[in-house]
């Protein structure tokens, strides 16, 4: 019987039989912890393995992104706890100046097609964008992975989603993603691996692939996998100088637990209203609602392409009076490119406040939270009550965020 994408990756990383429902011992190419939970990983490691070494410091990393640089003493302490441990163990730290950990793993060529990576970020599965298996895990899991370089994992069944038709700007990867979150719901792919395919998926640029894979978590999925594309290989070559990685493509006779098909021809800009990511509407249905704050960034929409889209819309214009536009590029590298190409200047002139690279609003990090009644539009991935403060949060694409910032109310980018 053929194998699905995730089964192929697993089969190359275990001695055990790989089939849905089987628990296997999975070899991990990379294990990471961020500043969120990182200090607890260190605590767990020290308790469980006093005076022992991590399995392989070359394959172990810390990535600080949740609250970077720390704006509470507790966070600063947690980061320092990780740094001290890293020095003792010879582990590399991507410190508070680096950006969002998963994106750093992609840019540095640490996450490559076919690899297995775990970390304390529940959006680690974003690494499906390059055909890698990424998984967010808890403290004990990661302490264990640091020490032993492997973990147990139940092989999930795979669900295939075929996308028919295509869409055009200003409809973007985020609209496709929110559309799917709405169709599947928060539990639609619970405990399953997803394979999402179709012409529109293959046409996505790397930023779009990241956006789509990042919200697998909001569909309940273990991870999402996409077909390879030119944009993928260009990115991988740029990061590693190589293209000869085993991309996990499902066999033609692979077995799926469920197959779905959606037509996206004529798809409109989509927005998720509070209080859940799957509460989706066409932007046009909610147009006119007042907006106080617009946040552009996050692991879902913090790439160069995402922020350039916003800058292009705002070029030569100003955000509406009373609206605060907050921008946080995903990584230092993205930040630098936007700076050197002049896009940050465009955003500055439009009235934006620009932060250094990190998770920012999504993790209650730098760039602030919302107060009660403060309506926020975010290009992030979660709008659960309290996640980003007391105010209601809507999730949308960078284009919708920019159009709405211009007018001070929810606005479809089709109007521009």
């Amino acid at each position: 019987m053929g194998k699905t994408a995730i089964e192929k990756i697993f089969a190359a990383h275990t001695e055990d039989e790989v089939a849905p429902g089987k628990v296997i011992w999975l070899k991990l190419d990379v294990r990471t912890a961020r500043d969120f939970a990182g200090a607890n990983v260190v605590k767990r490691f020290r308790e469980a393995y006093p005076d022992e070494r991590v399995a392989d410091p070359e394959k172990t990393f810390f990535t600080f992104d949740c609250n970077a640089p720390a704006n509470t003493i507790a966070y600063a302490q947690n980061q320092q706890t990780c740094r001290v441990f890293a020095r003792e163990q010879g582990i590399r730290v991507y410190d508070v100046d680096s950006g969002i950990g998963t994106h750093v793993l992609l840019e540095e060529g640490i996450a490559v097609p076919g690899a297995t990576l775990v970390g304390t970020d529940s959006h680690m599965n974003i690494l499906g964008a390059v055909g890698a298996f990424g998984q967010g895990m808890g403290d004990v899991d990661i302490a264990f992975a640091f020490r032993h370089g492997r973990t147990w994992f139940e092989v999930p069944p795979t669900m295939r989603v075929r996308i028919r038709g295509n869409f055009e700007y200003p409809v973007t990867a985020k609209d496709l993603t929110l559309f799917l979150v709405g169709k599947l719901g928060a539990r639609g792919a619970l405990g399953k691996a997803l394979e999402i395919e179709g012409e529109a998926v293959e046409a996505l640029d790397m930023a779009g692939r990241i956006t789509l894979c990042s919200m697998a978590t909001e569909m309940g999925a273990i991870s999402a996998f996409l077909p390879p594309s030119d944009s993928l290989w260009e990115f991988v070559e740029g990061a590693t100088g190589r293209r000869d990685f085993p991309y996990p493509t499902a066999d033609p006779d692979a077995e799926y637990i469920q197959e779905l098909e959606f037509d996206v021809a004529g798809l409109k800009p989509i927005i998720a209203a509070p209080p859940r990511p799957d509460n989706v509407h066409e932007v046009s249905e909610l147009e006119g609602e007042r907006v106080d704050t617009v946040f552009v960034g996050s692991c879902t929409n913090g790439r160069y392409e995402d922020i350039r889209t916003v800058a292009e819309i705002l070029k030569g214009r100003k955000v509406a009076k009373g609206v605060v536009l907050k921008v946080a590029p995903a990584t230092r590298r993205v930040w630098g490119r936007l700076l050197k190409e002049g896009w940050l200047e465009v955003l500055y002139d439009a009235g934006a406040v620009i932060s250094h690279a990190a998770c920012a609003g999504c993790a209650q990090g730098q760039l602030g939270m919302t107060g009660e009644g403060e309506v926020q539009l975010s290009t992030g991935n979660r709008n659960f009550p309290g996640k980003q403060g007391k105010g209601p949060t809507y999730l949308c694409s960078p284009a919708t965020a920019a159009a709405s910032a211009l007018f001070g109310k929810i606005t479809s980018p089709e109007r521009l």
Partner: protein
Amino acid sequence: MIKGRAWKYGDDVNTDVIFPGRYTYARMEPEEMAKHALEDLDPKFAAEVKPGDVIVAGKNFGCGSSREQAATCLVAAGVGAVIAKSFARIFFRNAINNGLLVLEIPEAVDAIGPGDEVEIDPEAGVLRHKGREYRFPPLPPTVMEILRDGGLIPHLKKALTKEG
């Protein structure tokens, strides 16, 4: 054997209400963590829960953030098991890795009411409630071994000792 009263909740109980985010950076001892278990969902829970009590919930229990305290605070509070219609996978792992029994028994969830007496025999795969028996498929052998050993790290330590 696990025996206790049921604490009943709905679908999509997320890790933010199981263990509030505002405490995740205070590195607490287990007894302290137990005091905040389910604080934002059911303020009575932490004060009234008794060892062996069982949480009974709907679909997708433990969704959202990967924070492990959502599992460890329940262990610290003495919760014997969580029975749900389904679990978010990161929570499911965190529970097992910390020795907390998690079972998907949808029919039992529908039948059990708040405060009902529940008895679970994980080895035999049986849950008893009001004279009725619910059979559930045994967890995979590796998972049962981890649970029996009290979590992932003790499990591997034991396995390594056995290998000599």
